[in-house]
């Protein structure tokens, strides 16, 4: 059975020994202890497991680890290197755009990806860009507000 032995995560080469068929989500959480990436449904419906692969928001629950070998993967743990929060993270705190926080890492990385594609999205673009993400606590209007704030502060960086 094919095995994957290395991933490029948060700018670091990480040694792994994983069946190529396993999900990126499971390898991140169970092998690399990067539990900031959340499981929500395992079927690509909630986007809690979103990470960035080569800058693109990617649902790690549906992504086989073989498909991302050698690619640059960014998880929530890598978004604030040396403790300096990304503008999107700051904006989520400012807008109080979370309650339980389970959807938050995926939501933030989805927003970072959105702002990289569209630096100054309209509200309609935010809604359509983020509609794959579920926040069961219902903080959607606040998340839209957080993305507006981050866009103003140059969150596309």
């Amino acid at each position, binding site marked *: 059975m094919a095995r994957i032995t290395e991933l490029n995560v948060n700018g670091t080469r990480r040694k792994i020994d994983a069946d190529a068929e396993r999900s990126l989500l499971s390898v991140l959480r169970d092998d690399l202890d990067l539990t900031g990436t959340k499981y929500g449904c395992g079927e690509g419906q909630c986007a809690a497991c979103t990470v960035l692969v080569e800058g693109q928001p990617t649902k790690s629950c549906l992504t086989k680890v073989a498909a991302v070998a050698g690619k640059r993967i960014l998880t929530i743990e890598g978004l*604030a290197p040396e403790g300096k929060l990304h503008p999107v993270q700051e904006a989520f705190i400012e807008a109080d755009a979370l309650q339980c926080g389970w959807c938050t890492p995926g939501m933030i990385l989805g927003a970072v990806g959105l702002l990289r594609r569209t630096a100054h999205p309209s509200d309609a673009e935010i809604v359509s860009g983020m509609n794959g993400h579920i926040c069961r606590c219902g903080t959607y209007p606040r998340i839209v507000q957080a993305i507006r704030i981050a866009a103003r502060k140059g969150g596309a960086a």
Partner: protein
Amino acid sequence: MNRREFFGLVGGGILVLLVEDELLAQESGGGGRRGFGAMPQDVSAWLHIGEDGVVTVYTGKVEVGQNARTSLTQAAAEELRVPPASVRLVMGDTALTPVDMGTVGSMTTPRMWPQIRRAAAEAREMLIDLALQKWAVDRASIRIADGRVSSGSHSAGFGDLTQGQKLTRTIPANVPLAPATEWSVAGKSLAKVDARAMVTGTHQYAYDRMSPGMLYAKVLYPPSFGAKLSSLDDSAAKAIPGVQVIRVTAASGREGAGHDVVGVLSVDPAAAEKGLAALKATWEPVAGQTNSRDVFTYFKQNANGSAPSAGLTAYTVAYIAHTPLEPRAAVAEWSADGKLTVWTGSQRPFGIRGELANEFKLPEEQVRVIVPDTGSGYGGKHTGDAALEAALLAKAVGKPVKRNWTREEELTWAYFRPGGLIEVGGRLNPDGALASWEFHNYNSGPSALQTPYAVPEKREQYHQVHSPLRQGSYRGLAATANIFVRESHMDELAHSIKMDPLEFRLKNTQDERLRNVIEAAADRFGWKNRRKIAGRGFGIAAGTEKGSYMACCVEVAVANGQVKVVRVLEAFECGAVVNPEHLRNQVEGAVAMGLGGALFEHIDFADGKIETNRLFRYRLPRFADMPLIESVLLDRKDLPSAGAGETPIMGVAPAVGNAIFDATGIRIRSLPMVPKGLPATGGGVTTSAVR
């Protein structure tokens, strides 16, 4: 734990114990006793100030996204005059915190919040006593601010005053507190205290917990509710390298899933998953279970209680799922001396401790349940399903076991918000005053069963039924169903005499607080100036539950058989507001969640199988479903603070339904209202089936 053990754990300093019973507080010696007696049994909170000056509050409440960690921090900071950042909260750990019935019923704010303030206020007085001993100054000259005690040229940190001492004081829970008009930290929008850990992904939820040497567990569940395992061939599963199959019998039966727990375990989660798929089981299903189409007739036919009057109008409410985004999860570890520790996401750490102690016939002190801040609950995480499975398997295998539920398990085997049939009828006097009111709830529950409107003659009854599905608490309990029906029917009555729905409610309201929220909502929404145009409709609904009051005004747009909720404005009053921004977040979030149950969420089931067992089959509210949501807070500083996690969800469905009627003339009498778009008529199959 006694006081000596507690100080051993936390070091010296000041310890304030708060007891529920005033007499007990006096008996155990009120003021400033130095000693190491046993902890009183009914302590509801304790607060410790360490020699380093750190204030630590211990409470059995848990944080599930409702921001209790923040509001309780404010409570301690308010009374101790310290920056909130220097207050630490230990929550939901049965070994460290006082016994607590659970984070349920919107009780944290009305009960725990003032108690922590009382404990903190007492600690403040103890600090002043210490300063008096040290400095020999006038008591009135002593000030406490920013975590320091001072008088004239004297100044000391909290830890400098307590140095080397172990002081305890036990106080009753009914000491008077300063009114809200004098608050400085409370009543303000303190930011979520643990937000940074959540936006950086460092907060460790129960689902994320790892224990050294642990095995991942999968558990075999029946293909249908109540099916019994008749044979099991686990040879293929066991043939997978590193996979163990463990079969244990639980003393406590799992509702619908029986006593047989078959676990598939491995250090490799993928191997455990493959092992589960490789099990060959045969099952004996339970025949003749009702389905979601017939369940309302079933309720009626199987209900207890006396028969209702003839000619009532029937409404139905579907079962729905909490769908907390963090599914149930637990890690269980047994120590060599037979003690059990479980990390799990729950609203009832002590309830789960009881379940586990009962299962393993252990004294409760031998079981420790630790609840990390949890990926929400909404009333859905009261039971210890995952904890029990993890603990049973960990015991059998002699290693720590991690048992994380999948979304499919969560949507199938967790308990649901009860479905219900409700029959209602009302008569009016010619002037529009209610003359009589009759209301019967079958199965969904008695919360907010009683009308808050003034009516001379009424009959209101809850009829219990044995539910065909596992059911339990859900944010707001049955108040959502009961208020949906009551407020829809009030709208029907208003229209029957061509009275404005707002005017009709005000005419029948004597409760001042209810009147205030109705008027505030209508005023801010612009109800009286609303302009009726084709395809648009406006609805209003109101109610009270758990000491708080809400009124919703809604605008909908209807086109091509589709309903779009355009605007929801909710006025909410829960006494003195503790944290305005977090209260708004709760109100708005409840509106968003309430839209799901109002418009499209429903559990389909047949033959003991849940058909809506995946997220792509169970629709949740998303960004694109959101209307403009506005919250109007009525801050009653003259009233005690009530909880706010539940009541704000209750007015959404009836206000939307009333707006749909206004737009279309169709009265929808079932929740959800538009799972497949606007129905041709409002009655629905369920109502006609009942009659």
